[in-house]
């Protein structure tokens, strides 16, 4: 059995130190060591996007990221989007426009949409589809998600 490894990472602005098995996945470190259970596991194979987080500013599937590669990294999870009680405008738009139903895909959708709006503040339908193409939703039929992203973009300052 391999020794544990020590990792430091900055998650949602706070420094964390964890001691984990060498091949632990970032997803499990977030959920189990840091108890940030907003990030979900759907497929475990990179297909569904439920586990999406930002790693050094880029969207990744945390189920496919060996935590050892996140040593020293900046991570943003869904818990990092709101400031205290103030939802990000994307989160608020998902609420107003019913962008979430069961909610399982929502944390991943929000992270991908946050990344999209950071890169492209006024996305077209096609750009939203491209930005969210790695996030599957079994409930909404996507139309409400598109509405939510458009609404947040129209508001201007979508995300952090």
């Amino acid at each position, binding site marked *: *059995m*391999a020794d544990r*490894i020590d990792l430091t990472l900055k998650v949602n602005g706070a420094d964390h130190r964890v001691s984990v*098995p*060498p*091949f*632990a*996945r970032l997803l499990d470190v977030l959920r189990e060591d840091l108890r940030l259970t907003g990030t979900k596991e759907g497929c*475990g*194979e*990179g*297909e569904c*996007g439920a586990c*999406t987080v930002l*790693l050094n500013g*880029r*969207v*990744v*599937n945390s*189920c*496919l*990221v*060996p935590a*050892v*590669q996140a040593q020293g990294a900046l991570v943003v999870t869904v818990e990092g989007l709101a400031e205290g009680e103030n939802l990000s405008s994307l989160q608020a738009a998902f609420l107003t426009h019913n962008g979430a139903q069961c909610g399982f895909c929502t944390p991943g959708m929000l992270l*991908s949409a946050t*990344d999209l709006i950071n890169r492209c503040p006024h996305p077209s339908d096609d750009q939203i589809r*491209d*930005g969210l*193409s*790695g*996030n599957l939703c079994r409930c909404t039929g996507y139309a409400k998600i598109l509405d939510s992203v458009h609404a947040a973009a129209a508001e201007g300052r979508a995300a952090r």
Partner: protein
Amino acid sequence: MRGYLPDFDVCVPASLGEALALMAQAPGTLTPLAGGTDLMVVYNAGRLKATRFLDLSSFEELRGIREEAGALTFGALTTFTELRECRAVHQHFPNLVKSARATGALAIQNRGTLGGNIANASPAADTPPSLLAYGAEVELRSVRGSRRVAYDRFHLGYKAMDLAPDELVAAIHVPLPTGRGFHYFRKVGTRQAQAISKTCLAAYARIEDGCVAELRIGVGSVAPAPIRARHAEAVLLGQPLASLPMAAAREALLADISPIDDIRATARYRSVVTRNVLGHMLRELATL
């Protein structure tokens, strides 16, 4: 069921030199780990045989896209996103941009690497047809030194490569095209994102005096490894754009490919659609 976590170990060497030395000590026992977008899927499915990994992700020598000696050199760790974002790649190798854009979705493109796409040796990978079309060379590195292999001789069969157990893919060199060029890339999958190719075809042609002066066609998902369509190329080489032997080229393609039935498509589908894609490419070439 996922692999049993305590069985797995990852080694993070301080330098590329140390990594190569470790690989040389016990060749074949350490599996290189780049973006993990192939390896972690197999691990999550509980089917990963390897248990000891060598993390390459911190080696700057394996990163970056540089122009040198009439070629673009891509470090093995170049991600699909970097391919999409690099101006020189857009300018010289539009097929590579299209390959990268057609790969998975954004989160995969941010992590998956060119070196991993090649070394994973999937017949269905999407950058290999473009690399074949552009006449790429692969640079391999070990403690014994470095050597270059023409990419069209790198894949030797299903998951078999001209890659020794102590070697890493260090870089991919792609010569800059000169003259009047024609670039074509088409992937056919179930949807635009997150779909593995049912068939994929990339081509590069240089046109001189209205004729096909140079031509390479790379195809994926229709043979045990990504291959050049040499029979089809031979039929077309030297021909005037005004009267390309389209039917003969489509027929010749049958001698190049050996598609099979699998979960994504039948052999017959692949054979028909790959020929249709070639037809589409030739109609575009004819109207250049």
